[in-house]
Structures are given as C-alpha cells and as structure tokens.
C-alpha cells in the first residue's frame, strides 16, 4: 500500500511517504512557521525525491485534530481534496493517537497533549499492548489540572508526550510526582511516519466529501450563542 501522511495539527509540520507499506521518506520541521505556505512545497519535494507520483497513491492519512484549528484545517483540506481528486480514501488519525505512538514501549499509560490555552489541554489516554497503541480514555479538551487528578487516581506510571511540554512540566511534577515520566525531547514531537503506520490499518470512512476535522470544541461564537439562548429560555 502506497501512503501519503500529512500532519499540521501543531507547530510541527510533517509529511511522509510509504511504498508497499515501507517508509520511503519524510520531511519534518519543528519550527513555528506558516503551514499554508510550506506544506505543498514539502509534499512536492518528497514526491520528486522519491520518484513517486500522486497517481501512485492508494490512500492519504492525515492528523484530523485536535490541535490548532487553522493548522488542522490546512492539513485536512489538503488531504481530503487530494484524495477526492485522485479517487482514493482519506483516513483521519487523532493527533493524540499519532503522538502516543512515540511511547510504544512504555509500561503504563500514555498521555499525549497539546496546550489549548488558559490552563487547558487537548489530550487523551492511551496504552501500549503488544506494541500496538490502543485508546483508554477518549480525546478531550480539559483543564490540565483536572486531567492530572484523574490520572493520579489510576496509581500507574504515566508518560507525558507533548511539543508543548515545557510550559506544563512543573504542574505535572507537582500533581503526579513519581508517577510521571517525561519523554525524551525527540519523543515529544509527532512523527509523520508513525502517522502513516497508524493510518495503514484503519478502515476509511464513506468518502472524502464527508471528512472534516475533529476540533473537539465548538467555535467560540457558537458556544456563547447557545449559552445565551439557554439563559433566555430559562428566564
């Protein structure tokens, strides 16, 4: 199976190509630069460096969120449109599940997360079973403090993976103490080849038309509107 994988859910930008299920190459940067400008040049470079053509692809895998709304949209729009144009499936993989792959050999639970501002994180809980990552608690947006309390009650070692680990490290230590394990600096960064591998076994949805990001959160205006309307009804 020939696969293109695309990840722009965080500031990390990654693209990878697999041919017959084997890695051909990847391009990854870890800089806070514009995904919209840089994604397509990276894809084209990777194809030309590996002598692949868009028509060779069997599927496209993309990190579907959660993450930066704009970032996720750039990856998802590119992936679903290209998949539709080539008449192949697009497969979405949670950006948390993608990141959790980095802790495949960890004994305990895996907590990948992205910072979501104002003390919140996008996160989920995973575990490795026989080298495969399975989900234990579904992805969500939550106050990091509340999430850490929930993890503490599990009384199990937890590994934390995040490109935003720096700003959360002291809180994690405070709340979980010895239960917490920090990843290596490389382990904190999502890798597009892992995304491709995670998307290889998944069943595609109906069609690229219906594929859209998993934001995990309503647009702010919508949430406020619903809140206001609920109040009006109660009055």
């Amino acid at each position: 199976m020939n696969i293109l994988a695309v990840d722009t859910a965080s500031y990390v930008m990654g693209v990878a190509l697999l041919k017959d299920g084997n890695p051909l190459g990847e391009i990854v940067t870890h800089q806070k630069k514009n995904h919209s400008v840089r994604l397509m040049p990276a894809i084209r470079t990777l194809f030309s460096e590996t002598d692949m053509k868009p028509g060779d692809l069997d599927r496209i895998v993309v990190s579907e969120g959660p993450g930066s709304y704009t970032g996720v949209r750039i990856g998802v729009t590119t992936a679903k449109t290209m998949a539709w144009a080539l008449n192949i499936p697009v497969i979405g993989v949670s950006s948390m599940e993608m990141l959790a792959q980095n802790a495949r050999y960890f004994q305990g639970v895996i907590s990948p997360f992205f910072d979501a501002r104002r003390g919140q994180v996008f996160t989920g809980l995973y575990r490795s079973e026989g080298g495969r990552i399975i989900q234990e608690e579904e992805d969500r947006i939550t106050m990091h403090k509340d999430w850490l309390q929930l993890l503490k009650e599990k009384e199990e070692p937890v590994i934390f993976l995040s490109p935003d680990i720096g700003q959360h490290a002291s809180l994690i230590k405070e709340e979980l103490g010895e239960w917490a394990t920090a990843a290596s600096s490389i382990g904190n960064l999502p890798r597009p080849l892992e995304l491709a591998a995670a998307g290889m076994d998944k069943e595609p949805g109906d069609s690229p038309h219906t594929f859209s990001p998993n934001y995990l959160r309503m647009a702010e205006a919508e949430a406020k509107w619903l809140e206001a309307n609920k109040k009006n009804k109660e009055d």
Partner: protein
Amino acid sequence: MSKNTIILGIETSCDETSVAVVKNGREVLSNIISSQIESHKRFGGVVPEIASRHHVEQITYIVEEAMAKADIQVEDVDGIAVTEGPGLVGALLVGVNASKALAFAWDKPLIGVHHIAGHIYANHIVEELDFPLLSLVVSGGHTELIYMKEHASYEVIGETRDDAVGEAYDKVARTLGLPYPGGPHIDRLAHEGKPVIDLPRAWLEEGSYDFSFSGLKSAVINTLHNAKQRGEEWSKEEIAASFQASVVDVLVTKAMRAAEDKKVDRLVLAGGVAANKGLRAELTEACGKAGLKLTVPPLELCTDNAAMIASAGTFLYWNGNFADDRLNGQAGLLLK
C-alpha cells in the same frame, strides 16, 4: 493544443463556498454557490471560524458539482484559479489549500486571483470588456474606483477612508432594527419612502476620488436621537431613502467625474452592493446623459461567486502569470 481555455475557479473569501467552470473567460459552464448565510444570521454577521469550518465541509462537494454541471473531465481543465485575497484569512486558506491540492494531484497550473479583480470581471462575462474603463467597486468590504487601461491591469484611483458602503448599510440597518444582512432591506425601504431628511455628503478635498461613510452613519444616528428628544419621529422608509440618497449621490457624482477626467467611454459596476436598485437606477441615468456605456452584472454575478474568479484568472493564464506551491491566503492583499 485545444483552442478553448477552460478554467476551474474557486472562491472562499467570506461566507460563500463557490466553484465554477468558465470557458475562454466568458462562457460560464457552471457556477455553483453554496451560501452559509443561514448559519451566520443568528450572530448578526459572518463569524470567521464558523465560515472556515463550513468551507472545509463543503469544498469537494462543490468542486464535484461544478464539474458535473459543466460536463467536463479532469483532462479538459487547463488551470485552477483561486481567490488568494483579500478576505477572511481562515476562509481563504481553505480555497487556497484545496486548489493547491487539485493542481498537484492533476498536474495543472495554479493561478492566484485578487477578489476585486474577480468582481470587475463579472462584467466581462456579461459583455466583453473594452479599454480604457473605469470600475466602481461597492461591496461589504470595498468601495473603490479602479481605472483599467488593459486586461489584468488595475489602478486604484479612489477608495474609502473608513467604512465600505456595504458596512455603512449594515450599520444603519442595525440602528433601524432590520435583520442581517441589512443592505437589501434598506434598498427596499428606500423605494417606499422619500428622502426628506437632509443628510451630509462627504465630498472630501477638491479633486479627491476617495470616499468616507462613517460620518454619514453617525449623522443618521444623531438625527434619530434628536428627533426622539423633540418627540418627533421619522419613518424607517424616510430614513432609508435619505441615507440611500446621500450614498448614491456621492458614488455616482465621483464615478462620473473620474470617468470624465480619465476619458473613459465605459463604466462597470462591481461588488455585492451593485445589486442595489437605487444605485443602478441613478448610475444608469447619469451614464445615459454622459454618453457612457455602463455594464451592471446580474444579481448572481454581483455577489461573491467563482465564475468571476475563473474569468479574471483566464487572463492571468493567457499571460502565463502562474502561482507556485507557496501561494497563501492573504487577508489584506493589494490590487496591482
């Protein structure tokens, strides 16, 4: 090489997801427009994040529908033209990235189009443009006078210094308690009332082609306030008619003066506010008197649509003016 040039156009700069197929810059084979207006109405204006989300959900459906309606295959497409700006950046990014994906997957050239250039070229679909010409662009985000000496060449000779015409309409509509979008409501009310209130006209400095509408909006609010204090009341129809009279007077007078100074024989009206009946009527009369040829696009080509983007993009295609993979959505893109 085929004699015909077929361009697929994509427009997502605000709250319309639109895809069109246009042959030789003029023949519209399809022009599919999916409006989100119903989702934004309850917020009283377009919410950028919600607009972006809808665009992602709609984009491939609309491309497919446009190609099916035009009855063309991938092989028939010569290039992909997309609005790169100005507009809401998150919304633009969906069209731009989808277009880059199509261009890469199908190995087609990519063309970046300025949204206002698109509005002007809506007129080329109606009647072939001839030069030099002057375009009056009026929409929710723009009020500009643009001089063109040839295809794909634009000189902005006047622009608004504060609110765009459409913005002023929406603000006054809100003051009158009319639903969003307010422009069409004011236009309708204006036809039912008489312009009995003497509202100011912002002519600005002698010889300037620029516009200013924020003072007019304040004048409307003050007039309403003062009348209320005196226990008087103007009807909504009278206010709408007086406001519209002031706007149209300034637009028409400046456009006619610019047309005379620039020695053009052709005037084209462009942008969403071009649907305004009051403006159409006054401009038609003034152009008739001055012996100027006037084109006003039909309603479906006045508001945001991809046929106009494909039409403007066709000339860039013919000029070999292509974009590369780094094409980006730009909220404040200037017209050059």
